[in-house]
């Protein structure tokens, strides 16, 4: 008789920290990280008619201490190193797995928070737990090592964010300024210079990476548009503590149909431009999607695009 047990609330107290006044970031981690994010997914399994000798060899070869026995995706049991030692001691190593596997298993579900896994390891003395999905299919195995790794990685990210948040203060004296850059037609050598300078400036001033990324995307696309499509022009970046306004002016020949130019994938670039990796028809749509405010006017005399990126908006989310 095979029986899987899932135990929900009973063991929650066995997490080694309290859940009422521990730091929110830590509690969030142990509830937000799901078992499926931490578990090992590339499983080595064997079918029930495999012999214990085959399993012994597999364990040796793959350096494993326990192997799930399955029928397709369905977990039937586990053979551990202890089972193999027993088999060697008592001389039944040639028997098939199904005769001797541990069938009374404790399992976890992949959608459970990692706190469940932590409490399971505390409560039961197993070294690993099989993980099933909603359809009761075997999708992974979780060990203490998996938990340590995933917690460490997520803690690292969370603490880095906290540190960034703390150190982020805008220096108003530094930021109030205007920078302008001349952009020449078909000058692929210098293309990207304005964007790089603006990015470096924002980085030096200490803005969060996500805001810098948005500014860099807007600026680069506008700069490349001038290089690729116009007779030349300029990029003007106006910094204030609240926002960055990027203005791209060119000397023509203008965009025939602005609405078309704003459509994803629409481009007038020729083969040569495309061979350089430009002309995906994503330029203006990219600018629009990263801008908080966006405007475009175009005539034969030239095109003017203004992209505004709010530097202080939803800083908590951006950090």
């Amino acid at each position, binding site marked *: 008789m095979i029986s899987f047990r899932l135990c929900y609330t009973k063991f929650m107290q066995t997490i080694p920290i309290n859940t009422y006044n521990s730091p929110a970031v830590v509690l969030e981690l142990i509830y937000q990280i799901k078992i499926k994010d931490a578990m090992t997914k590339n499983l080595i399994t064997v079918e029930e008619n495999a012999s214990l000798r085959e399993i012994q060899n597999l364990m040796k070869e793959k350096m494993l201490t326990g192997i799930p026995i399955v029928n397709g995706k369905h977990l039937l049991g586990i053979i551990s190193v202890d089972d193999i030692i027993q088999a060697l001691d008592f001389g039944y190593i040639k028997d098939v797995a199904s005769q001797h596997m541990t069938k009374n298993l404790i399992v976890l579900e992949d959608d459970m928070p990692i706190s469940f896994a932590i409490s399971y390891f505390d409560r039961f003395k197993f070294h690993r737990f099989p993980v099933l999905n909603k359809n009761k299919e075997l999708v992974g195995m979780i060990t203490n090592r998996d938990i340590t790794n995933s917690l460490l990685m997520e803690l690292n990210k969370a603490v880095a964010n906290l540190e960034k948040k703390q150190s982020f203060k805008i220096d108003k004296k530094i930021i109030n300024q205007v920078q302008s850059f001349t952009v020449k037609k078909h000058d*692929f*050598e210098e293309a990207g210079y304005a964007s*790089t300078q603006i990015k470096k400036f924002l980085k030096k001033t200490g803005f969060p*990476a996500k805001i810098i990324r948005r500014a860099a*995307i807007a600026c680069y696309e506008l700069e490349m548009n001038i290089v690729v499509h116009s007779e030349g022009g300029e990029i003007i970046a106006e910094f204030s503590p609240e926002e960055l306004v990027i203005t791209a002016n060119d000397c023509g020949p203008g965009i025939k149909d602005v609405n078309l130019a704003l459509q994803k994938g629409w481009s007038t670039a020729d083969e040569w431009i495309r061979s350089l*990796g430009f002309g*995906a028809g*994503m330029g203006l749509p990219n600018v629009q999607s990263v801008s908080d405010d966006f405007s475009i006017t175009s005539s034969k005399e030239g095109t003017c695009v203004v992209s505004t990126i709010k530097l202080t908006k939803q800083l908590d989310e951006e950090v």
Partner: protein
Amino acid sequence: MLTVEKVCELKGYKCALMGNSEDEITSCYTGDLLSDVMGNAEENSALITIQAHKNTIAVASLVGIRVVVLCNGRTSPDDMKKAAKEEGVTILETKDNQFSASWKIAELLGLK
């Protein structure tokens, strides 16, 4: 954790320029159109492409791509290597096509 150095160890991948070998790689994007890369590649990623020129490094630097993998035996021109050195971006060259390279890096990222 996947580092630039580990990607460099892939068999048949030649390191044309080493940026920061200890940089962490957390995702990967495959594409040859730079605006598409610009809009979709994530920070701390690897870029798999055939665009062997300087502008690829500009895009990489702006979006935080740490390693550029040039496929189909394309090689990096000197000005591309120079730009990559300044920006700390690693360049790898391989005879693999983009599909094979994506497949191999997905495996390194534990996505398979």
